[in-house]
């Protein structure tokens, strides 16, 4: 009779990609991973909320906003908004693709999302360039500096997101993700939607009201 040795390794979902599974846990994306991502996003949400509260406090000290003699913010912000909304849509499609095991669709939509992210940064850059062209810089008073700071804060997170999107896109080319294993895609989707929502709130606060 075979000696019953203690089994220490955990059982993973059916092969063939079990070797691609990181050794931390059995199910991917795991509940722990998703929860960790939610907590991370909560923390970031507080960062953005605090920055916007700061913005509102600064703004409330002015009688008029934009202050007298200051130009309106560039209308190109609409373009940025449309681009980032489209990218949210495409990454959502990517999520559906990976859960339906449609590799081609996943690769295509991840590429589109990454591209749209770059376009978003580009349109934001154009908005800055437009302001700099009329000599409104980061030290041209609080109206301008708050705009630059808020958009820069958001853009930095978009850059971070793009790095991760690039990583996930590259890995989806090698067929890493499928319906039973797609943590990278899911985290990218959560983070990217989060940036979209943050931008919408920011857009409403600095441009529409």
């Amino acid at each position, binding site marked *: 009779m075979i000696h019953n040795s*203690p089994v*220490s390794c955990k059982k993973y979902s059916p092969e063939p990609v079990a070797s691609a599974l990181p050794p*931390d846990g059995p199910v991917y994306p795991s*509940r*722990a991973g998703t*929860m*960790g991502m939610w*907590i*991370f996003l*909560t*923390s*970031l949400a*507080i*960062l953005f909320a*605090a*920055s916007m509260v*700061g913005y509102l*406090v*600064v703004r409330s*000290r*002015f009688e008029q906003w934009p202050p007298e003699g200051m130009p309106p913010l560039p209308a190109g912000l609409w373009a940025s908004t449309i681009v980032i909304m489209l990218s949210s849509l495409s990454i959502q499609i990517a999520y559906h693709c990976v859960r339906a095991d449609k590799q081609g669709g996943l690769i295509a939509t991840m590429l589109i999302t990454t591209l749209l992210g770059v376009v978003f940064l580009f349109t934001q850059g154009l908005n800055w360039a437009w302001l700099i062209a009329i000599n409104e810089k*980061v*030290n041209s*008073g*609080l109206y301008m*500096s*708050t705009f*630059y*700071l808020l958009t820069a*804060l958001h853009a930095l997170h978009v850059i971070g997101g793009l790095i991760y999107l690039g990583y996930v896109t590259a890995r989806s080319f090698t067929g890493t993700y499928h319906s039973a294993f797609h943590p990278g895609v899911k985290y990218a989707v959560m983070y990217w939607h989060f940036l979209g929502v943050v931008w919408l709130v920011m857009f409403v606060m600095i441009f529409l009201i």
Partner: protein
Amino acid sequence: MTTISSSYDPVPELAHGNNYLTHTRGVLSWLFTLDHKRIGVMYLVGILGSFFLGGVFAVLVRTELLFQGEQVLTDDQYNQMFTLHGAVMTFLVIIPGIPAALGNFVLPIMLGAKDVAFPRLNLASFYLWTLGAIFFLAVLASGGLDTGWTFYTPYSIETNTAVIGATAGAFILGFSSILTGMNFIVSIHQLRPPGMTWFKMPLFLWALYATAIIQVLATPVLAITLLLLIAERTFQVGIFDPKLGGDPVLYQHFFWFYSHPAVYIMILPAMGVISELVSVFSRKHIFGYRFIAYSSIAIALFGFLVWGHHMFTSGQSNMMNMIFSALTFSVSIPSAIKVFNWLATMYKGSISLATPMCYALIFIFLFGIGGLTGLFLTTLATDIQLHDTYFVVAHFHYVMMGGTMIAFFGALHYWWPKMTGRMYSEMWGRLAAFLVFVGFNTTFFPQFVAGSQGMPRRYADYKEMYAGYHFVSSIGSYIMAVAFVIMACYLLHSLFRGRKAPANPWGANTLEWHCSSPPPHQNFDEQPAVGDCYDYSGLEYDTATDSYVPKSRTAVTT
């Protein structure tokens, strides 16, 4: 209590000749480890090193103040020394002290788990801490910092010391703190073993959980504050600059919105430690478990609503001052609930004055004074007089050092046998604890008196009338320094010559005492059974090993 005793390895010392320290060898096996125990030990080394550095600054500050006039530091150097003392002690020692070093070591074992939920993130968090510490060292090397640890505007915008380096360091440390908090929250939610419901968790875990919530929710506000300060210095954006329409008091709001909750990041884990120590060394079930658990959460939530009490003299409206004052008074309720529950736990307990318990008792005494003197500062009328005096300095040292650091040393002595596998000398341990207690009170009690007579904080010199208080205070700091040197000596000595630690030297019943000392690499071979971690009736003293063993075991062998 058969369920508990059955989870004991019959002869842990023999079954695990291979422990987490000997599991793999070499420097790289430490630097790239994902083992929460090793990460905890690395944190501990870093934090103790930082404590030494901050302590040197403190001794220099006290030496300058030993007599009137200039002693060892110029006025500018003095400003740098108290700033660096505060910044190093706050950001590098007290905030990460208990959660990141000791919490990292015991949290997964207390959960009967192999590791935290995200081991790689845990290592990343340690390296962020290291990077932040390097920034602080760079600041030290590049001309220091003289803003005070609070970086208050407008001075922090004007001074030409290394504000950006220091704020960048604090920013990185904040990031490390967020990652640790996130890891702990998920670990506690997802890794609790079958049978360990929320209300069967050790109270230390409740405290770490409440702490983690604050770390995750408050630290981002510090991040944005420091980023704005950097932007202000780099681009003159004007947010904190009245000349450009900004508001320097806005900085204070932002800063304290983080830094008051940060006070609870510092004290809650300490309270968690005390809850464990008091019960174990009284050999009595913790009294009012649910009250202690809930009060941790209550403190965490209340902590977000009281930041304005740092700004009673900054020109807040009277209405705001009254609201913040009232809310601050209410925080003392959950704090007092804990103290009363600890006292009730000790009542009629069979108290053993082992070194960790000495620290627990010192904590209760000093934290009591720290808390009660806080009431004078919460009261608007008295705060006008006491604001920015040595009364405040004494108050927060009673809480931060008398509270958090004392609990840290209690925890260090409590888990030292578990972490290192060695026992330190009880006699020297108690002596050091006694000297810390004497030195601490000699240092800080006179400061209450000096402060109430108007001695302002952060001054390099003082009038004749304060000379006596300052002299005594400085002598006290030397007594403490001696105590810490003694502590370093006997702890280091124990590493080489100490008696091998048994699995359960204190007779505790949380899960980390169910595995050998030091624990094996994987903590447990199989999922340990969970019982009531404050029920000691299943344990009895074993003279052969000078430790506690399950009753059933001796019953079988004898």
